[in-house]
């Protein structure tokens, strides 16, 4: 186990680690990420308060912009790539996302159906 010498050719990349090692290129990567993230954030805040677009499309637009911004963060700040030396990191992320979608999607789905199919609370009280 060598700590000081690390050989990118021998092993996979650690999460957050970059393939490029020149300082200038790495800074440019962060600057691009920051610019894209700021752009997406500004768009979300603008979309949320505008009357220029069809109103029912706004929630979907906000969700799409949020997912896009998370992608920007993953690529430019956490340096998750599709490269073969990143497979372990991507697979762990994919499994985490699966659980997240099961928990959030499942809860929203089940609870909205329960809400529709159950009588209101005061009606239950009257039935007893």
């Amino acid at each position: 186990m060598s700590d000081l010498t690390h050989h990118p050719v021998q092993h996979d990349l650690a999460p957050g680690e970059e393939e490029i090692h020149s300082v200038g290129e790495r800074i440019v990567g962060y600057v691009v990420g920051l610019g894209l993230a700021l752009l997406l954030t500004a768009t979300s805040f603008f979309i949320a308060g505008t009357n220029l677009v069809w109103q029912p499309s706004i929630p979907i637009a906000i969700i799409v912009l949020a997912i896009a911004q998370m992608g920007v963060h993953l690529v430019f700040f956490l340096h998750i790539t599709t490269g073969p030396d990143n497979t372990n990191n991507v697979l762990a992320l994919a499994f985490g996302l699966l659980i997240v979608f099961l928990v959030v999607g499942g809860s929203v789905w089940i609870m909205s159906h329960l809400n529709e199919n159950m009588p209101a609370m005061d009606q239950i009280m009257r039935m007893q």
Partner: protein
Amino acid sequence: MAMTATYGHAHADPHHLGRAIEHPGPAPKRIVTAYGFWVFLLSDIVMFSCFFAAYAVLVGQTADGPKGSEIFEQRNVAIETVCLLLSSFTCGMASIAADVRNRLWFYLGMAVTCLLGLIFLSIEFREFADLVSRGYGPSRSAFLTAFFSLVGCHGLHVTAGVLWLLTMMAQVFAKGFRADILRRMMCFALFWHALDIIWVAVFSVVYLLGSGV
């Protein structure tokens, strides 16, 4: 360059076929540590997803209390978002500085990150204090319970992150850029960037979608 010259190189041999006989041995400690921390972060994100699910289910249950659109101030949220985004950037600068062992830029990057984190926390704290003083505390309605627990949980993470950040500055000051300190710095950077990703979900789902409901 001939292909045979680069054979065995990870990028020329993505499926490790050339190294099937000669196993490279265990991964270096920095990869093992960072990967373990990555798995922890993903489990933390799974925990946050439970709070998000609770918020999504309870967002309409206001018990005649205030709705999201009545209590959220978009301007504050925008400032908080910009603070966290910039702090993610300066945290990246600090980790580059740590990799090239440049103390000045490391301290500078970390100090700016800390400052932006503290601005974020103070805005959030004032928002919470204001809501509680108006009688809209977490016990007012199920919606407010879900709101305070989700946003407050993120705020607690940021607080922990700021403490960790100061610890990293002190450790670099006392021990220098040793291999173990650099591993901790790497985990800290992962943690801080992950908090920013969670904040993206918070401001989109809670503040922007919530004020439309």
